[in-house]
Protein backbone atom coordinates (compact mmCIF):
# COMPACT_ATOMS: atom_id res chain seq x y z
CA UNK A 1 0.00 0.00 0.00
CA UNK A 2 1.30 3.44 -0.83
CA UNK A 3 2.05 5.97 1.86
CA UNK A 4 -0.93 8.15 1.02
CA UNK A 5 -3.32 5.19 0.84
CA UNK A 6 -2.28 4.18 4.35
CA UNK A 7 -2.68 7.77 5.51
CA UNK A 8 -6.11 8.10 3.89
CA UNK A 9 -7.35 4.92 5.54
CA UNK A 10 -7.63 7.00 8.67
CA UNK A 11 -10.71 9.10 7.92
CA UNK A 12 -9.97 11.60 10.66
CA UNK A 13 -6.52 12.23 9.21
CA UNK A 14 -8.04 13.02 5.84
CA UNK A 15 -10.46 15.50 7.41
CA UNK A 16 -7.56 17.02 9.35
CA UNK A 17 -5.52 17.37 6.16
CA UNK A 18 -8.38 19.17 4.41
CA UNK A 19 -8.88 21.59 7.32
CA UNK A 20 -5.15 22.22 7.44
CA UNK A 21 -4.99 22.95 3.71
CA UNK A 22 -7.88 25.41 4.09
CA UNK A 23 -6.06 27.21 6.89
CA UNK A 24 -2.87 27.37 4.83
CA UNK A 25 -4.97 28.79 1.99
CA UNK A 26 -6.34 31.40 4.43
CA UNK A 27 -2.83 32.42 5.38
CA UNK A 28 -1.77 32.73 1.73
CA UNK A 29 -4.91 34.56 0.58
CA UNK A 30 -5.05 36.98 3.53
CA UNK A 31 -3.02 39.76 1.86
CA UNK A 32 -5.08 39.39 -1.35
CA UNK A 33 -8.56 39.36 0.21
CA UNK A 34 -7.77 41.88 2.95
CA UNK A 35 -4.92 43.98 1.58
CA UNK A 36 -5.34 46.56 4.33
CA UNK A 37 -3.55 46.10 7.62
CA UNK A 38 -5.73 44.10 10.04
CA UNK A 39 -4.87 46.75 12.65
CA UNK A 40 -6.64 49.54 10.76
CA UNK A 41 -9.91 50.85 12.09
CA UNK A 42 -12.33 50.49 9.21
CA UNK A 43 -15.83 50.68 10.67
CA UNK A 44 -17.60 51.65 13.83
CA UNK A 45 -16.68 49.39 16.76
CA UNK A 46 -18.76 46.45 18.08
CA UNK A 47 -20.42 45.66 14.78
CA UNK A 48 -22.10 42.23 15.22
CA UNK A 49 -21.40 39.44 12.70
CA UNK A 50 -23.35 39.38 9.42
CA UNK A 51 -24.75 42.85 10.04
CA UNK A 52 -22.88 44.56 7.23
CA UNK A 53 -21.32 43.58 3.90
CA UNK A 54 -17.58 43.10 4.01
CA UNK A 55 -17.63 42.41 7.76
CA UNK A 56 -18.93 38.83 8.01
CA UNK A 57 -17.53 38.39 11.51
CA UNK A 58 -18.16 41.93 12.73
CA UNK A 59 -15.73 44.49 14.11
CA UNK A 60 -13.85 44.66 17.40
CA UNK A 61 -13.62 47.22 20.19
CA UNK A 62 -11.61 49.57 17.95
CA UNK A 63 -13.61 49.04 14.78
CA UNK A 64 -11.11 46.62 13.23
CA UNK A 65 -12.33 43.90 10.87
CA UNK A 66 -12.46 40.56 12.74
CA UNK A 67 -12.44 38.53 9.51
CA UNK A 68 -9.26 40.27 8.36
CA UNK A 69 -7.65 39.61 11.74
CA UNK A 70 -8.46 35.91 11.55
CA UNK A 71 -7.09 35.57 8.01
CA UNK A 72 -3.87 37.40 8.84
CA UNK A 73 -3.61 35.57 12.17
CA UNK A 74 -3.49 32.20 10.36
CA UNK A 75 -0.15 33.18 8.90
CA UNK A 76 1.38 34.03 12.28
CA UNK A 77 0.09 30.91 14.00
CA UNK A 78 1.39 28.56 11.32
CA UNK A 79 4.71 30.37 11.05
CA UNK A 80 5.39 30.35 14.79
CA UNK A 81 4.23 26.73 15.07
CA UNK A 82 6.55 25.55 12.30
CA UNK A 83 9.62 27.60 13.15
CA UNK A 84 9.52 26.94 16.90
CA UNK A 85 9.10 23.21 16.27
CA UNK A 86 12.09 23.25 13.90
CA UNK A 87 14.20 25.02 16.53
CA UNK A 88 13.06 22.52 19.17
CA UNK A 89 14.12 19.68 16.84
CA UNK A 90 17.50 21.35 16.31
CA UNK A 91 18.03 21.28 20.09
CA UNK A 92 16.40 17.95 20.92
CA UNK A 93 17.61 15.69 18.10
CA UNK A 94 21.37 16.22 18.61
CA UNK A 95 21.09 15.97 22.40
CA UNK A 96 19.02 12.81 22.22
CA UNK A 97 21.24 11.28 19.55
CA UNK A 98 24.45 11.90 21.50
CA UNK A 99 22.93 10.65 24.77
CA UNK A 100 21.51 7.50 23.18
CA UNK A 101 24.52 6.70 21.01
CA UNK A 102 27.29 7.16 23.56
CA UNK A 103 25.41 6.17 26.71
CA UNK A 104 27.30 6.12 30.01
CA UNK A 105 28.19 9.36 31.75
CA UNK A 106 27.39 11.56 28.72
CA UNK A 107 23.91 10.07 28.69
CA UNK A 108 23.58 10.65 32.44
CA UNK A 109 24.54 14.31 32.22
CA UNK A 110 22.37 15.05 29.21
CA UNK A 111 19.38 13.29 30.71
CA UNK A 112 19.67 15.17 34.02
CA UNK A 113 19.74 18.36 31.95
CA UNK A 114 16.61 17.24 30.07
CA UNK A 115 14.85 16.28 33.28
CA UNK A 116 15.59 19.71 34.71
CA UNK A 117 13.75 21.33 31.81
CA UNK A 118 10.91 18.85 32.14
CA UNK A 119 10.45 19.70 35.81
CA UNK A 120 10.04 23.43 35.24
CA UNK A 121 6.40 24.20 34.40
CA UNK A 122 6.43 24.79 30.63
CA UNK A 123 3.99 27.60 30.38
CA UNK A 124 5.40 29.59 33.31
CA UNK A 125 8.90 29.29 31.83
CA UNK A 126 7.67 30.44 28.43
CA UNK A 127 5.98 33.46 30.02
CA UNK A 128 9.09 34.45 31.95
CA UNK A 129 11.35 34.06 28.91
CA UNK A 130 9.15 36.16 26.63
CA UNK A 131 8.61 38.81 29.29
CA UNK A 132 12.34 39.17 29.92
CA UNK A 133 13.37 39.06 26.25
CA UNK A 134 10.49 41.42 25.36
CA UNK A 135 7.63 40.16 23.18
CA UNK A 136 8.55 39.63 19.52
CA UNK A 137 8.19 36.81 17.01
CA UNK A 138 11.81 35.81 17.71
CA UNK A 139 11.45 35.70 21.49
CA UNK A 140 8.17 33.76 21.25
CA UNK A 141 9.72 31.22 18.88
CA UNK A 142 12.74 30.81 21.15
CA UNK A 143 10.65 30.48 24.31
CA UNK A 144 8.37 27.85 22.77
CA UNK A 145 11.38 25.92 21.43
CA UNK A 146 13.11 26.01 24.82
CA UNK A 147 10.08 24.53 26.58
CA UNK A 148 9.29 21.91 23.95
CA UNK A 149 12.57 20.15 23.07
CA UNK A 150 12.77 17.67 26.02
CA UNK A 151 10.27 15.11 24.61
CA UNK A 152 12.23 15.15 21.33
CA UNK A 153 15.50 14.41 23.13
CA UNK A 154 13.88 11.55 25.05
CA UNK A 155 12.34 10.01 21.95
CA UNK A 156 15.53 10.24 19.88
CA UNK A 157 17.60 8.87 22.76
CA UNK A 158 15.31 5.84 23.13
CA UNK A 159 15.46 5.18 19.37
CA UNK A 160 19.26 5.46 19.29
CA UNK A 161 19.63 3.15 22.27
CA UNK A 162 17.58 0.46 20.57
CA UNK A 163 19.37 0.85 17.24
CA UNK A 164 22.99 1.38 18.23
CA UNK A 165 23.82 -2.32 18.50
CA UNK A 166 22.05 -3.44 15.36
CA UNK A 167 24.07 -5.40 12.81
CA UNK A 168 24.18 -2.67 10.21
CA UNK A 169 25.62 -0.28 12.77
CA UNK A 170 28.24 -2.86 13.79
CA UNK A 171 29.04 -3.33 10.10
CA UNK A 172 29.47 0.41 9.64
CA UNK A 173 31.80 0.45 12.63
CA UNK A 174 33.84 -2.43 11.20
CA UNK A 175 34.40 -0.68 7.89
CA UNK A 176 35.75 2.22 9.92
CA UNK A 177 33.03 4.83 9.68
CA UNK A 178 33.38 7.59 12.24
CA UNK A 179 30.86 8.01 15.04
CA UNK A 180 29.52 11.18 13.44
CA UNK A 181 28.95 9.40 10.14
CA UNK A 182 27.25 6.48 11.87
CA UNK A 183 24.97 8.83 13.83
CA UNK A 184 24.05 10.97 10.84
CA UNK A 185 24.04 8.43 7.98
CA UNK A 186 23.17 5.11 9.60
CA UNK A 187 21.00 5.62 12.65
CA UNK A 188 19.32 9.01 12.23
CA UNK A 189 17.52 8.13 8.95
CA UNK A 190 15.96 5.16 10.73
CA UNK A 191 14.55 7.31 13.51
CA UNK A 192 12.85 9.78 11.18
CA UNK A 193 9.30 8.42 11.20
CA UNK A 194 8.64 8.74 14.95
CA UNK A 195 10.31 12.17 14.85
CA UNK A 196 8.00 13.31 12.06
CA UNK A 197 4.93 12.13 13.96
CA UNK A 198 6.06 13.86 17.15
CA UNK A 199 6.90 17.03 15.23
CA UNK A 200 3.42 17.30 13.75
CA UNK A 201 1.91 17.09 17.26
CA UNK A 202 4.47 19.63 18.51
CA UNK A 203 3.38 22.16 15.89
CA UNK A 204 -0.14 21.86 17.34
CA UNK A 205 1.10 22.37 20.90
CA UNK A 206 3.26 25.31 19.79
CA UNK A 207 0.23 27.01 18.24
CA UNK A 208 -1.71 26.55 21.50
CA UNK A 209 1.24 27.97 23.46
CA UNK A 210 1.60 30.95 21.16
CA UNK A 211 -2.09 31.74 21.41
CA UNK A 212 -1.95 31.51 25.21
CA UNK A 213 1.08 33.83 25.33
CA UNK A 214 -0.55 36.44 23.11
CA UNK A 215 -3.77 36.07 25.08
CA UNK A 216 -1.83 37.21 28.16
CA UNK A 217 -0.50 40.20 26.21
CA UNK A 218 2.86 38.68 25.33
CA UNK A 219 2.30 38.58 21.58
CA UNK A 220 4.46 40.46 19.10
CA UNK A 221 2.88 43.93 19.09
CA UNK A 222 3.42 44.20 15.32
CA UNK A 223 1.58 41.10 14.15
CA UNK A 224 -2.10 40.25 14.45
CA UNK A 225 -2.64 36.89 16.15
CA UNK A 226 -5.65 34.87 17.25
CA UNK A 227 -4.57 34.80 20.87
CA UNK A 228 -4.19 38.59 20.91
CA UNK A 229 -7.70 39.03 19.49
CA UNK A 230 -9.19 36.88 22.27
CA UNK A 231 -7.13 38.59 24.96
CA UNK A 232 -8.10 42.07 23.76
CA UNK A 233 -11.77 41.10 23.82
CA UNK A 234 -11.62 39.40 27.22
CA UNK A 235 -12.94 42.37 29.18
CA UNK A 236 -15.87 42.99 26.81
CA UNK A 237 -16.98 39.36 26.68
CA UNK A 238 -20.41 40.28 28.05
CA UNK A 239 -21.15 42.78 25.27
CA UNK A 240 -19.40 41.11 22.34
CA UNK A 241 -19.00 37.34 22.48
CA UNK A 242 -18.10 37.08 18.79
CA UNK A 243 -14.79 38.88 19.29
CA UNK A 244 -13.50 35.93 21.33
CA UNK A 245 -15.57 33.22 19.70
CA UNK A 246 -14.27 33.24 16.12
CA UNK A 247 -10.52 33.42 16.80
CA UNK A 248 -10.98 30.60 19.32
CA UNK A 249 -12.68 28.43 16.71
CA UNK A 250 -9.77 29.15 14.37
CA UNK A 251 -7.24 27.97 16.98
CA UNK A 252 -9.35 24.93 17.83
CA UNK A 253 -9.66 23.85 14.19
CA UNK A 254 -5.96 24.32 13.45
CA UNK A 255 -4.83 22.39 16.52
CA UNK A 256 -7.40 19.67 15.93
CA UNK A 257 -6.37 19.33 12.27
CA UNK A 258 -2.69 19.02 13.17
CA UNK A 259 -3.45 16.36 15.77
CA UNK A 260 -5.53 14.37 13.29
CA UNK A 261 -2.80 14.64 10.66
CA UNK A 262 -0.26 13.50 13.26
CA UNK A 263 -2.32 10.40 14.03
CA UNK A 264 -2.66 9.69 10.32
CA UNK A 265 1.10 10.02 9.83
CA UNK A 266 1.59 7.65 12.73
CA UNK A 267 -0.63 5.07 11.05
CA UNK A 268 1.07 5.56 7.70
CA UNK A 269 4.67 5.58 8.91
CA UNK A 270 4.44 2.90 11.59
CA UNK A 271 2.04 0.39 10.07
CA UNK A 272 3.11 -2.37 12.43
CA UNK A 273 2.31 -0.32 15.48
CA UNK A 274 -0.91 1.26 14.29
CA UNK A 275 -3.35 1.46 17.12
CA UNK A 276 -6.42 -0.68 17.39
CA UNK A 277 -9.45 1.28 16.53
Amino acid at each position, binding site marked *: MSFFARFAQNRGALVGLIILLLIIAMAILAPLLFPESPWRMVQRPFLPPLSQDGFPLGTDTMGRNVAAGIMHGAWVSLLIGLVSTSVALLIGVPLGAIAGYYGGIIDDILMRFTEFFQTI*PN*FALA*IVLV*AIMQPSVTSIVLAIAIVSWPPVARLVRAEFMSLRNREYVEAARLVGQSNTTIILRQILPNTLSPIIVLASLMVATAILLESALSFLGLGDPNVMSWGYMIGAARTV*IRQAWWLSFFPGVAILLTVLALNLVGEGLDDALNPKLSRER
Partner: protein
Amino acid sequence: MVYARLIIMRLLKAVVVLFLIVIFNFFLIQMAPGDPAAILAGEAGATDQEFLNQLRERFGLDQPLYVQLWRYVSGIAMLDFGYSYRLGVPVFDLIMARLPATLLLTGTAFVLSLVLGIVAGSMAAARVKKPSGSIIMALALLFYATPLFWVALMSVVVFSVYLGWLPAYGLYTVGAGHTGFALALDVAKHLVLPATTLALFFMAIYTRMTRTSMLDAAQQDYVKTARAKGLKPSIIQRRHVLRNALLPIITLAGLQAGQMVGGAILTETVFAWPGIGRLMFEALQQRDYNLLLGIFFFSAALVIVFNIITDLVYSLADPRIKKGAS
Protein backbone atom coordinates in the same frame (compact mmCIF):
# COMPACT_ATOMS: atom_id res chain seq x y z
CA MET B 1 13.09 2.95 56.28
CA VAL B 2 12.77 2.44 52.56
CA TYR B 3 10.33 5.32 52.31
CA ALA B 4 12.51 7.56 54.45
CA ARG B 5 15.42 7.00 52.07
CA LEU B 6 13.22 7.57 49.07
CA ILE B 7 11.96 10.84 50.52
CA ILE B 8 15.47 12.03 51.38
CA MET B 9 16.71 11.26 47.87
CA ARG B 10 13.78 13.10 46.30
CA LEU B 11 14.22 16.09 48.59
CA LEU B 12 17.92 16.32 47.73
CA LYS B 13 17.07 16.25 44.05
CA ALA B 14 14.42 18.91 44.62
CA VAL B 15 16.92 21.17 46.37
CA VAL B 16 19.35 20.85 43.44
CA VAL B 17 16.63 21.70 40.91
CA LEU B 18 15.40 24.68 42.93
CA PHE B 19 18.97 25.90 43.34
CA LEU B 20 19.47 25.79 39.57
CA ILE B 21 16.23 27.70 39.07
CA VAL B 22 17.41 30.39 41.49
CA ILE B 23 20.63 30.79 39.49
CA PHE B 24 18.60 30.86 36.29
CA ASN B 25 16.36 33.58 37.81
CA PHE B 26 19.40 35.61 38.80
CA PHE B 27 20.67 35.71 35.23
CA LEU B 28 17.20 36.52 33.94
CA ILE B 29 17.10 39.55 36.21
CA GLN B 30 20.41 40.66 34.73
CA MET B 31 18.87 40.33 31.27
CA ALA B 32 15.63 42.11 32.12
CA PRO B 33 15.18 45.52 30.55
CA GLY B 34 16.03 48.34 32.91
CA ASP B 35 18.46 48.69 35.76
CA PRO B 36 18.78 45.59 37.97
CA ALA B 37 19.22 47.96 40.90
CA ALA B 38 15.84 49.39 40.17
CA ILE B 39 14.28 45.97 39.65
CA LEU B 40 15.71 44.47 42.78
CA ALA B 41 14.95 47.50 44.85
CA GLY B 42 11.44 47.58 43.56
CA GLU B 43 11.73 51.16 42.42
CA ALA B 44 11.86 50.91 38.63
CA GLY B 45 11.33 54.26 37.01
CA ALA B 46 13.03 56.16 39.79
CA THR B 47 15.03 58.93 38.16
CA ASP B 48 17.03 59.97 41.18
CA GLN B 49 20.58 58.87 40.32
CA GLU B 50 21.79 59.50 43.87
CA PHE B 51 19.07 57.22 45.20
CA LEU B 52 19.87 54.51 42.67
CA ASN B 53 23.54 54.65 43.59
CA GLN B 54 22.56 54.26 47.19
CA LEU B 55 20.44 51.28 46.30
CA ARG B 56 23.23 49.81 44.22
CA GLU B 57 25.50 50.01 47.20
CA ARG B 58 22.91 48.69 49.61
CA PHE B 59 22.01 45.73 47.42
CA GLY B 60 25.66 45.15 46.55
CA LEU B 61 25.17 45.79 42.85
CA ASP B 62 28.53 47.54 42.73
CA GLN B 63 30.07 44.20 43.68
CA PRO B 64 31.33 41.63 41.15
CA LEU B 65 28.72 39.31 39.66
CA TYR B 66 29.61 36.24 41.74
CA VAL B 67 29.21 38.18 45.00
CA GLN B 68 25.80 39.35 43.82
CA LEU B 69 24.86 35.82 42.88
CA TRP B 70 25.87 34.57 46.31
CA ARG B 71 23.79 37.27 48.00
CA TYR B 72 20.79 36.52 45.83
CA VAL B 73 20.97 32.78 46.44
CA SER B 74 21.49 33.10 50.19
CA GLY B 75 18.63 35.62 50.33
CA ILE B 76 16.26 33.16 48.72
CA ALA B 77 17.48 30.38 51.00
CA MET B 78 16.11 32.56 53.80
CA LEU B 79 12.88 33.15 51.87
CA ASP B 80 13.83 36.70 50.99
CA PHE B 81 12.58 37.22 47.43
CA GLY B 82 12.92 40.98 47.43
CA TYR B 83 10.14 43.47 46.84
CA SER B 84 7.42 43.90 44.26
CA TYR B 85 8.03 47.25 42.65
CA ARG B 86 4.45 48.29 42.05
CA LEU B 87 3.06 47.14 45.35
CA GLY B 88 6.05 47.79 47.59
CA VAL B 89 5.34 44.57 49.47
CA PRO B 90 7.72 41.62 49.92
CA VAL B 91 7.22 39.14 47.07
CA PHE B 92 7.09 36.25 49.53
CA ASP B 93 4.14 37.76 51.43
CA LEU B 94 2.23 38.41 48.21
CA ILE B 95 2.69 34.84 47.04
CA MET B 96 1.77 33.32 50.39
CA ALA B 97 -1.45 35.32 50.45
CA ARG B 98 -2.41 34.00 47.01
CA LEU B 99 -1.20 30.42 47.34
CA PRO B 100 -4.28 28.87 49.07
CA ALA B 101 -6.64 29.92 46.24
CA THR B 102 -4.35 28.30 43.66
CA LEU B 103 -4.01 25.11 45.69
CA LEU B 104 -7.80 24.91 46.01
CA LEU B 105 -8.28 25.42 42.27
CA THR B 106 -5.54 23.09 41.02
CA GLY B 107 -6.30 20.45 43.65
CA THR B 108 -9.98 20.34 42.72
CA ALA B 109 -9.22 20.34 39.02
CA PHE B 110 -6.64 17.57 39.45
CA VAL B 111 -8.99 15.23 41.31
CA LEU B 112 -11.84 16.03 38.93
CA SER B 113 -9.79 15.45 35.78
CA LEU B 114 -8.16 12.28 37.09
CA VAL B 115 -11.43 10.65 38.18
CA LEU B 116 -13.33 11.63 35.02
CA GLY B 117 -10.35 10.76 32.83
CA ILE B 118 -9.95 7.28 34.30
CA VAL B 119 -13.70 6.59 34.04
CA ALA B 120 -13.89 7.84 30.44
CA GLY B 121 -10.66 6.08 29.48
CA SER B 122 -11.73 2.71 30.86
CA MET B 123 -15.10 3.05 29.16
CA ALA B 124 -13.33 3.75 25.88
CA ALA B 125 -10.97 0.80 26.41
CA ALA B 126 -13.90 -1.55 27.04
CA ARG B 127 -15.58 -0.27 23.87
CA VAL B 128 -12.73 -0.53 21.37
CA LYS B 129 -14.06 -0.76 17.81
CA LYS B 130 -17.52 0.34 18.97
CA PRO B 131 -18.97 3.74 18.02
CA SER B 132 -19.46 4.73 21.67
CA GLY B 133 -15.73 4.21 22.32
CA SER B 134 -14.80 6.28 19.29
CA ILE B 135 -17.10 9.08 20.42
CA ILE B 136 -15.37 9.26 23.80
CA MET B 137 -11.98 9.45 22.10
CA ALA B 138 -13.20 12.09 19.65
CA LEU B 139 -14.43 14.22 22.56
CA ALA B 140 -11.11 13.76 24.32
CA LEU B 141 -9.29 14.94 21.20
CA LEU B 142 -11.63 17.92 20.95
CA PHE B 143 -10.97 19.01 24.55
CA TYR B 144 -7.26 18.46 24.01
CA ALA B 145 -7.23 20.79 21.01
CA THR B 146 -9.33 23.56 22.58
CA PRO B 147 -7.46 26.51 24.05
CA LEU B 148 -8.05 26.56 27.81
CA PHE B 149 -8.61 30.31 28.04
CA TRP B 150 -11.16 30.16 25.25
CA VAL B 151 -13.20 27.43 26.96
CA ALA B 152 -13.05 29.56 30.09
CA LEU B 153 -14.37 32.65 28.31
CA MET B 154 -17.08 30.72 26.48
CA SER B 155 -18.24 29.10 29.71
CA VAL B 156 -18.59 32.60 31.20
CA VAL B 157 -20.75 33.61 28.23
CA VAL B 158 -22.95 30.51 28.44
CA PHE B 159 -23.24 29.69 32.13
CA SER B 160 -22.87 33.10 33.65
CA VAL B 161 -24.12 35.70 31.17
CA TYR B 162 -26.90 33.83 29.34
CA LEU B 163 -28.03 31.19 31.80
CA GLY B 164 -27.09 33.08 34.94
CA TRP B 165 -26.41 29.82 36.79
CA LEU B 166 -22.95 30.45 38.16
CA PRO B 167 -20.82 33.41 39.17
CA ALA B 168 -18.02 34.18 36.72
CA TYR B 169 -15.56 36.20 38.74
CA GLY B 170 -13.70 36.01 42.01
CA LEU B 171 -13.41 33.59 44.88
CA TYR B 172 -16.56 34.60 46.79
CA THR B 173 -19.35 37.17 46.64
CA VAL B 174 -17.83 40.42 47.83
CA GLY B 175 -19.89 42.19 50.43
CA ALA B 176 -22.27 39.30 51.04
CA GLY B 177 -20.68 38.72 54.44
CA HIS B 178 -21.15 34.95 54.35
CA THR B 179 -19.60 32.91 57.11
CA GLY B 180 -19.25 29.23 57.92
CA PHE B 181 -21.24 26.89 55.72
CA ALA B 182 -22.76 29.67 53.61
CA LEU B 183 -19.24 30.89 52.79
CA ALA B 184 -18.10 27.39 51.84
CA LEU B 185 -21.09 27.03 49.54
CA ASP B 186 -20.43 30.44 48.02
CA VAL B 187 -16.78 29.55 47.33
CA ALA B 188 -17.83 26.19 45.89
CA LYS B 189 -20.17 27.95 43.45
CA HIS B 190 -17.38 30.26 42.38
CA LEU B 191 -15.09 27.26 42.00
CA VAL B 192 -17.28 25.32 39.55
CA LEU B 193 -16.43 27.15 36.32
CA PRO B 194 -12.67 27.67 36.85
CA ALA B 195 -12.10 24.12 38.11
CA THR B 196 -14.14 22.52 35.33
CA THR B 197 -12.49 24.47 32.52
CA LEU B 198 -9.03 23.76 33.94
CA ALA B 199 -9.94 20.08 34.36
CA LEU B 200 -11.24 19.55 30.79
CA PHE B 201 -7.84 19.72 29.09
CA PHE B 202 -6.21 17.40 31.62
CA MET B 203 -9.18 15.08 31.56
CA ALA B 204 -8.56 14.65 27.84
CA ILE B 205 -4.94 13.66 28.53
CA TYR B 206 -5.89 11.21 31.29
CA THR B 207 -8.61 9.65 29.14
CA ARG B 208 -6.11 8.88 26.37
CA MET B 209 -3.53 7.61 28.86
CA THR B 210 -6.00 5.36 30.66
CA ARG B 211 -7.24 3.84 27.40
CA THR B 212 -3.73 3.07 26.13
CA SER B 213 -2.65 1.74 29.49
CA MET B 214 -5.73 -0.48 29.82
CA LEU B 215 -5.35 -1.85 26.31
CA ASP B 216 -1.70 -2.68 27.11
CA ALA B 217 -2.65 -4.35 30.38
CA ALA B 218 -5.36 -6.38 28.63
CA GLN B 219 -2.66 -8.06 26.52
CA GLN B 220 -0.86 -9.47 29.57
CA ASP B 221 -0.74 -13.17 30.36
CA TYR B 222 -2.56 -12.94 33.68
CA VAL B 223 -5.53 -11.43 31.90
CA LYS B 224 -5.56 -14.36 29.46
CA THR B 225 -5.41 -16.70 32.44
CA ALA B 226 -8.32 -14.92 34.10
CA ARG B 227 -10.29 -15.16 30.88
CA ALA B 228 -9.44 -18.86 30.55
CA LYS B 229 -10.68 -19.41 34.09
CA GLY B 230 -14.02 -18.09 32.89
CA LEU B 231 -14.19 -14.95 35.02
CA LYS B 232 -16.79 -12.38 34.04
CA PRO B 233 -15.40 -9.71 31.66
CA SER B 234 -16.53 -6.89 33.97
CA ILE B 235 -14.59 -8.40 36.87
CA ILE B 236 -11.51 -8.93 34.69
CA GLN B 237 -11.70 -5.31 33.56
CA ARG B 238 -11.95 -3.98 37.11
CA ARG B 239 -9.73 -6.31 39.12
CA HIS B 240 -7.08 -7.37 36.65
CA VAL B 241 -6.83 -4.75 33.95
CA LEU B 242 -7.66 -1.46 35.64
CA ARG B 243 -5.63 -2.18 38.74
CA ASN B 244 -2.48 -2.82 36.76
CA ALA B 245 -3.17 -0.04 34.33
CA LEU B 246 -3.37 2.46 37.17
CA LEU B 247 0.36 2.44 37.97
CA PRO B 248 1.59 4.05 34.76
CA ILE B 249 -1.35 6.45 35.00
CA ILE B 250 -0.22 7.63 38.42
CA THR B 251 3.30 8.35 37.14
CA LEU B 252 2.12 10.26 34.11
CA ALA B 253 -0.58 12.03 36.09
CA GLY B 254 2.07 13.35 38.45
CA LEU B 255 4.11 14.71 35.56
CA GLN B 256 1.06 16.36 34.04
CA ALA B 257 -0.08 17.79 37.37
CA GLY B 258 2.88 20.13 37.18
CA GLN B 259 1.55 21.58 33.97
CA MET B 260 -1.69 22.34 35.80
CA VAL B 261 0.07 25.20 37.54
CA GLY B 262 0.66 26.66 34.07
CA GLY B 263 -2.97 26.14 33.11
CA ALA B 264 -4.03 27.89 36.30
CA ILE B 265 -2.37 31.10 35.04
CA LEU B 266 -4.90 31.20 32.20
CA THR B 267 -8.00 30.13 34.14
CA GLU B 268 -7.25 32.45 37.04
CA THR B 269 -6.77 35.33 34.61
CA VAL B 270 -10.17 34.78 33.00
CA PHE B 271 -12.08 34.17 36.23
CA ALA B 272 -10.28 36.80 38.35
CA TRP B 273 -9.45 33.96 40.73
CA PRO B 274 -7.13 35.48 43.34
CA GLY B 275 -4.34 32.88 43.10
CA ILE B 276 -0.69 33.06 42.07
CA GLY B 277 -1.67 32.61 38.41
CA ARG B 278 -3.67 35.81 38.45
CA LEU B 279 -0.83 37.43 40.38
CA MET B 280 1.52 36.40 37.57
CA PHE B 281 -0.77 38.03 35.02
CA GLU B 282 -0.84 41.24 37.08
CA ALA B 283 2.96 41.15 37.42
CA LEU B 284 3.21 40.76 33.64
CA GLN B 285 0.97 43.69 32.91
CA GLN B 286 2.97 45.93 35.21
CA ARG B 287 6.32 44.52 34.13
CA ASP B 288 6.99 43.68 37.77
CA TYR B 289 9.95 41.39 36.99
CA ASN B 290 11.01 40.54 40.51
CA LEU B 291 7.49 39.44 41.41
CA LEU B 292 7.26 37.52 38.12
CA LEU B 293 10.43 35.56 38.83
CA GLY B 294 9.35 34.91 42.42
CA ILE B 295 6.11 33.36 41.18
CA PHE B 296 8.03 31.38 38.57
CA PHE B 297 10.21 29.93 41.34
CA PHE B 298 7.14 29.03 43.39
CA SER B 299 5.34 27.38 40.51
CA ALA B 300 8.40 25.20 39.92
CA ALA B 301 8.49 24.38 43.64
CA LEU B 302 4.82 23.38 43.47
CA VAL B 303 5.54 21.06 40.57
CA ILE B 304 8.32 19.39 42.53
CA VAL B 305 6.07 18.92 45.55
CA PHE B 306 3.41 17.39 43.27
CA ASN B 307 6.01 15.04 41.82
CA ILE B 308 7.27 13.92 45.21
CA ILE B 309 3.73 13.19 46.35
CA THR B 310 3.15 11.18 43.17
CA ASP B 311 6.33 9.21 43.77
CA LEU B 312 5.20 8.39 47.28
CA VAL B 313 1.73 7.36 46.18
CA TYR B 314 3.32 5.24 43.48
CA SER B 315 5.69 3.51 45.86
CA LEU B 316 2.79 2.80 48.20
CA ALA B 317 0.64 1.50 45.36
CA ASP B 318 3.29 -0.73 43.82
CA PRO B 319 4.53 -3.37 46.23
CA ARG B 320 7.37 -4.23 43.85
CA ILE B 321 9.24 -1.03 44.68
CA LYS B 322 11.31 -1.97 47.66
CA LYS B 323 14.79 -0.55 47.62
CA GLY B 324 14.43 3.16 46.89
CA ALA B 325 14.84 2.56 43.20
CA SER B 326 13.49 5.84 41.93
